[in-house]
């Protein structure tokens, strides 16, 4: 009887015997490099689109709105002349379009996002730096929590041996997934903050308190974070649960699930190591794909709760027609989405052995 032979060697053993050119070839065609090039491509295309859109409108809305604000005697009073000058120089509208594009890209590479119009001469970078920690703190927690709880809920819902009454959770979860999270936020504010006064209505901390690392301040921050976090997590749970349930049901028909049962494995093992483990894979891909949508949701939640994160900065900038701040926030968000996608792409092969770093 002839053994069937091992079809594919491991990447390591292949690399050991490779010549330098072969090695170069492998690196060039490697998964990692391709994902990194895609990462750069996303940023480049997005930056270019951001560059083109204002120029397509044929007008100069920024300048017009700027003048409008000045006439109204709004936020910009002092230093209007300087600012207009700086603004002209910044956009360099008198220069050929390619030069404008080149300057814009150079600024971007140095991560110089320009200067605010409304709060001249503050740099956009410093404004974003001030607000982004709030966003990261809130968003980081809720994305992870929402994903984990939602995936687990979906796994239980899609598991045939789960108790039947769990199925009653499906409609509420589905509804939660269909409602934009900031609208949930509105309802939560009304019920839990306005009606029952259990939580503060808005903001990230009491206006009176000074930021410091004492217990009172941290407690204050946590209290303020609970409602926006809850709004986000509730929506996210529904979203992930509905997706996970579908994958679990789909997986039930797979041969390896039937075989797992034929092997007489314990229910818990089949659930975790066979069903959930495989149904997780599209969830993780989904996490990368919907990160941008989740972030958009977070921006709107911050708007509702007047939470001083990057979303609130964006909203204030929209209100004041502060073009460079808007552009800066958009660029920052796109950068973070591209980075997150890249990270998931890089880490995904650890979850799925079928994806090989060397191939594809």
């Amino acid at each position, binding site marked *: 009887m002839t053994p069937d032979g091992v079809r594919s060697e491991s990447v390591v053993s292949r690399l050991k015997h490779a010549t330098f050119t072969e090695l170069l070839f492998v690196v060039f065609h490697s998964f990692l490099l391709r994902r990194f090039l895609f990462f750069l491509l996303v940023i480049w295309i997005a930056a270019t689109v951001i560059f083109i859109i204002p120029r397509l409108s044929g007008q100069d*809305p920024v300048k017009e709105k700027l003048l409008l604000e000045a006439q109204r005697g709004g936020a910009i009073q002092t230093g209007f002349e300087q600012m207009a000058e700086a603004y002209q120089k910044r956009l360099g509208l008198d220069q050929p379009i390619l030069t404008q594009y080149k300057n814009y890209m150079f600024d971007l590479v140095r991560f110089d996002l320009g200067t605010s119009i409304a709060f001249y001469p503050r740099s956009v970078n410093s404004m974003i730096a001030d607000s982004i920690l709030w966003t990261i703190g809130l968003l980081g927690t809720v994305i992870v929590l929402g994903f984990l709880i939602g995936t687990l809920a979906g796994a239980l819902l899609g598991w045939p041996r789960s108790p039947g009454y769990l199925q009653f959770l499906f409609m509420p979860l589905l509804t939660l997934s269909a409602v*934009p999270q900031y609208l949930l936020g509105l309802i939560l504010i009304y019920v839990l903050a306005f009606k029952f006064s259990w939580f503060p209505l808005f903001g990230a901390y009491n206006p009176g308190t000074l930021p410091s690392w004492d217990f009172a301040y941290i407690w204050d921050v946590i209290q303020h974070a609970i409602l926006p976090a809850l709004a986000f997590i509730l929506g996210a749970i529904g979203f992930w649960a509905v997706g996970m349930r579908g994958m679990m049901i789909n997986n039930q028909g797979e041969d390896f699930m039937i075989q797992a049962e034929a092997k007489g494995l314990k229910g818990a093992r089949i659930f975790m190591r066979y069903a959930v483990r495989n149904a997780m894979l599209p969830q993780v891909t989904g996490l990368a794909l919907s990160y941008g949508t989740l972030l958009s949701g977070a921006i709107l939640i911050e708007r509702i709760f007047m939470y001083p994160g990057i979303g609130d900065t964006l*909203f204030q900038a929209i209100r004041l027609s502060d073009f460079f701040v808007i552009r800066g926030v958009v660029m920052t968000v796109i950068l973070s989405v591209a980075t997150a996608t890249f990270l998931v792409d890089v880490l995904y092969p650890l979850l799925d052995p079928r994806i090989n770093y060397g191939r594809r």
Partner: protein
Amino acid sequence: MDTPQASQSPTSPPPSRSKTDELKQLYWDRINPIIRYARRNPPLIFGVLLLGGLMLFVGIGYLVYDTEQYRVLSADPGDTRHPPSLQYPFGTDTAGRDLFAVAIRGTPLTLRIGLIAGFFAVSFGTVLAFIAAYYRGLVDGTVRVMADVGMTVPPLLILILIAINIEGGLSVDQMGLAVATVAWVWPARTIRAQVLIMREQSYVEISRLSGSSGMAIIFKEMMPNLIPYITASFVTSVAAGILASIGLEALGLGPFDSPTLGMTIFWNIQQSSIILGMWWWWLPPIVAIVIVFVGLFLISSGLDEWSNPRLRQRV
């Protein structure tokens, strides 16, 4: 499978039948399979019923109510914050809009944004998908990369950039078009994948070998099989369009003179209706939005079942 309806319609026609009976039978033969299918696909039916109910509310409202009251200061000036009453079923807001009229006027406007976005996104996406799958190579590569990039970038952000650069804000129709410019990526991706699978299949191959023109193959062989995917993409795009438009409106970049659901939400946030305790102001638009999204979601998962029978077993 014995149902009241089924027992009413005789399977073997009686010898003498009137013309109306014949007509009834004719229609019944059309409707019966739909009902039979519906019983096996409750999500689809429930979704259609939800949206149908909402449309019914709007339709009846237009017939029996003075919807012009959506305008500012329609309620008696000076005292504008009415809670729901017989005169104002949904109450009025701080600017004196009759919120019942706003709900009747605003719901179809919001749906309109979604439909425009969905129609153009799916049309554009489908055409791109066919072009990409037909020419392959560089064209296909470009479309694929564009779609991948488009999926990475959150649509809301691109919409914000478009909106702030349009003087006077976006109108309802412009808003739908703007959403379509970012929403085509999903249909393009899913349909491209289906076309690529399909063009390798034998019936397309046979049609090609028997000398059918490209157009004939596309419209006679491929399109009928793509209908479930195109319909599903359309429903998803409509939902995505509405979601993005409401987000845009909540940020204050919507059509200020239109009483869409999103603009109503915006005025709520702007005027702090929550702290004013005016629950009747924010509740109707939220309920309408929830009905729209749940309805669209159910329809799309019903369609999923249709194109992917494996899910049928346990939904």
